[in-house]
């Protein structure tokens, strides 16, 4: 058997399509293993479909490498965070913690938003006060924001813990107090009179990163900005877990973000193991079921065969997609249910082909010879019939894989995917549903489509390479 396997492999490896297919598959498998090892299992629920997690990401931002191709430099996305203050000062009332973030801003457009987040604040005496100041490249200093951590409740005893379960996110963009501070700043420094509500509609982040030109025009101010987050505490035991300042950009990462600000590269990467899982698991189960029923029906015959064949004909001839939509709707959108449905509707093709192969084999004299020496049915099916159809079944297994990947993508695209697990089809679907395609968010639509096609092609290439091994008519003359 091993020499046969070796020969078959040599035959397979002879073709270039096989080599390309195997290289592609290796890449797919490596990426999938990486994801399985490094991602949490509840990635979908905890991160992907949790809008809070993506609040500090730019929305609908193209990949950052588009800057190489455009004349106007789009601002990058900056996230500063620290768990330790850069400086501590002793004041008369307590200890002052100073967090310092420096940013060399060189883009041709202002950032898209500004936000401050604090986490795990503990105090014992008076509520801690948090302030945010900025020093601009022109030397002007603005105290942007001032926030007092909520006071103790009635009956609460120290230590008072704040923002442990959920961190405190303060969006400076859209904050009216910031707007009035900025309005005052403008009239003081530039003699520009503008109402706070107008500041709010222009965008606080925009005013901070620019100089006014006339009453309504602003030009971007490039250079070094320094942000100070100043925390005044009143007890030596008071502490702050983490502070984070986000200067929202308009490009993000390697693959960009979607309209919820989700990092597409993370979602697309997660799609690899899911696609492989659906493709391989579904096609393995389908092939085993289909081949098993085909062998049993073909060999045992009679009523069993009749039942299997009629069922296969029936399942094979009902329109698949509408029914799948209907059933996915009724049974719920769960990955296992989707796999189950794909199996239920996938087996008949193989059963019909395998049965006809078995009928031909069954009339072979070696089957009669096996009966004559007293071999029971299951023995004949396993030892004599299965090995003869095995290469074909194996090739079908590979050939079925892209079919199921595409079917799952189609189901997801129709909004019937498992919402707890992002797949390429779902990313694509959301891109369509939220209008991404109409406003030209190509980085959202094209990559999942290409990945689906690429994965399908990988398996098609391998299946093509196996064709001469399985189909003796294509073998070289021997």
């Amino acid at each position, binding site marked *: 058997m091993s020499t046969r396997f070796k020969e078959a492999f040599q035959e397979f490896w002879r073709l270039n399509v096989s080599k390309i297919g195997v290289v592609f598959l290796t890449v797919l498998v490596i990426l999938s293993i990486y994801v399985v090892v490094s991602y949490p299992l509840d990635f979908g629920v905890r991160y992907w479909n949790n809008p809070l997690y993506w609040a500090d990401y730019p929305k609908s931002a193209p990949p950052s490498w588009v800057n190489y191709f455009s004349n106007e430099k789009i601002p990058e996305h900056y996230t500063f965070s620290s768990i330790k203050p850069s400086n501590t000062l002793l004041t008369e009332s307590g200890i002052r913690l100073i967090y310092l973030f420096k940013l060399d801003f060189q883009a041709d457009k202002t950032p898209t938003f500004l936000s401050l987040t604090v986490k795990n604040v503990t105090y014992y005496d008076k509520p801690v006060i948090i302030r945010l100041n900025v020093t601009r490249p022109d030397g002007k200093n603005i105290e942007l924001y001032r926030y007092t951590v909520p006071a103790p409740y009635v009956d609460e005893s120290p230590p008072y813990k704040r923002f442990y379960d959920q961190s405190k996110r303060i969006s400076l963009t859209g904050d009216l107090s910031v707007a009035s501070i900025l309005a005052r700043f403008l009239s003081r420094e530039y003699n520009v009179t503008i109402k706070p509500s107008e500041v709010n509609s222009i965008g606080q982040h925009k005013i901070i990163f620019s100089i006014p030109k006339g009453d309504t025009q602003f030009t971007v101010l490039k250079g070094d900005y320094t942000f100070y987050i100043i925390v005044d505490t009143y007890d030596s035991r008071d502490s702050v877990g983490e502070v984070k300042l986000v200067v929202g950009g308009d490009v993000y990462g390697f693959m960009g973000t979607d309209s919820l600000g989700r990092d597409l590269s993370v979602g697309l990467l997660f799609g690899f193991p899911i696609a492989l899982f659906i493709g391989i698991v579904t096609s393995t189960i389908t092939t085993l079921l289909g081949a098993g029923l085909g062998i049993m029906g073909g060999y045992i015959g009679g009523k069993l065969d009749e039942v299997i064949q009629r069922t296969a004909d029936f399942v094979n001839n009902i329109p698949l997609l509408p029914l799948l939509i209907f059933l996915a709707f009724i049974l719920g959108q769960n990955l296992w249910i989707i796999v189950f449905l794909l199996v239920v509707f996938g087996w008949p093709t193989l059963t019909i082909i395998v049965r006809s192969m078995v009928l031909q084999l069954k009339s072979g004299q070696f089957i009669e010879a096996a009966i004559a*020496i007293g071999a029971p049915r299951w023995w004949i099916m396993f030892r004599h019939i299965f090995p003869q159809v095995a290469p074909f079944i194996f090739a079908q297994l590979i050939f079925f894989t892209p079919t199921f990947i595409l079917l799952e993508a189609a189901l997801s695209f129709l909004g019937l995917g498992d919402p707890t697990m992002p797949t390429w089809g779902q990313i694509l679907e959301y891109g369509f549903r939220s209008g991404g395609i109409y406003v030209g968010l190509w980085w959202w639509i094209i990559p999942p489509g290409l990945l689906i096609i690429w994965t399908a092609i990988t398996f098609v290439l391998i299946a093509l390479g196996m064709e001469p091994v399985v189909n003796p008519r294509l073998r070289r003359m021997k």
Partner: protein
Amino acid sequence: MSSELIRLENVKMYFESRIGLFKTIPVKAVDGVNVRIFRGETLALVGESGCGKTTLGRVSLRLLKPVSGRIIFDGVDITDKEEKELKWFRKRAQAVFQDPYSSINPFMTVKEILEEPLILHHVGDSEERLEMIAKALTDVKLTPIEEFMRKYPHMLSGGQRQRVGIARALILKPEYIVADEPVSMIDASSRAEILYLLKELQEKYKISFLYITHDIATAKHFSDKIAVMYLGKIVEQAEAYELVRNPLHPYTKGLIEAVPEPDPSNRLKERKVILGEPPSPINPPSGCRFHPRCPYRFEPCDKNEPELKEARINHYVACYLY
């Protein structure tokens, strides 16, 4: 005298032949046949294609269940036994098939092919089995044994494959072997070799053979008795030499006359032949089934079917001429 091993009593085997979408009609492949084979004896079943000889062979192995009649093997009626109750019989009765290319599984080595019956019948442990395989290969003269055990069927010649087929039939030490055209696909120069091998093994192990063939000449040389079959019936049966020397039934005579021998004068004369071709077993002729082609037919032939009668000592024929 030797004792009887297997007896078929008035065996009938009909197949359903589909003629329309729903309509089937019976094809009378074997239609009332009595056969007895004694221990250590070879009975040749001679006939042309479609006469039912292969079907009869398969019925005698209970690979087919006859529609009526009885199969008695060593005194036990196995006609209606379930496959589970036939395990002992499967061990004692074996088959050698016509086509050495399709009767052995191409995915198994010679060792695996020969070990399969032993495993199925739980014979010996793996060491004992290896010994038995070696012995069977020596018996069929496939040496060196070690080398042949590792081979796959496609590495063997037709003759060698047929020896593997024989070794497989032999390995369970059966008492009865059905050999269905075992040499028809083997080269003329090697046929006799396989037949001598079967003969030698028969004498060594006292096996009873049912030798099914279309070739009356090899039947004469390699069997004790010959039964001639025509359209599902045995028309004549006798000791091999007696039957060939003194054929009684007009069909047997025609069959013998049709066999050419290497003689340069053959080409100068026309051969006396049986006219026409055998009719379909779906609708056999009334009376004697051979009567439409028989040159001697007379009054009773198309009315009643003649019985198999002892026309000479131990020479049975079903014909109104006797």
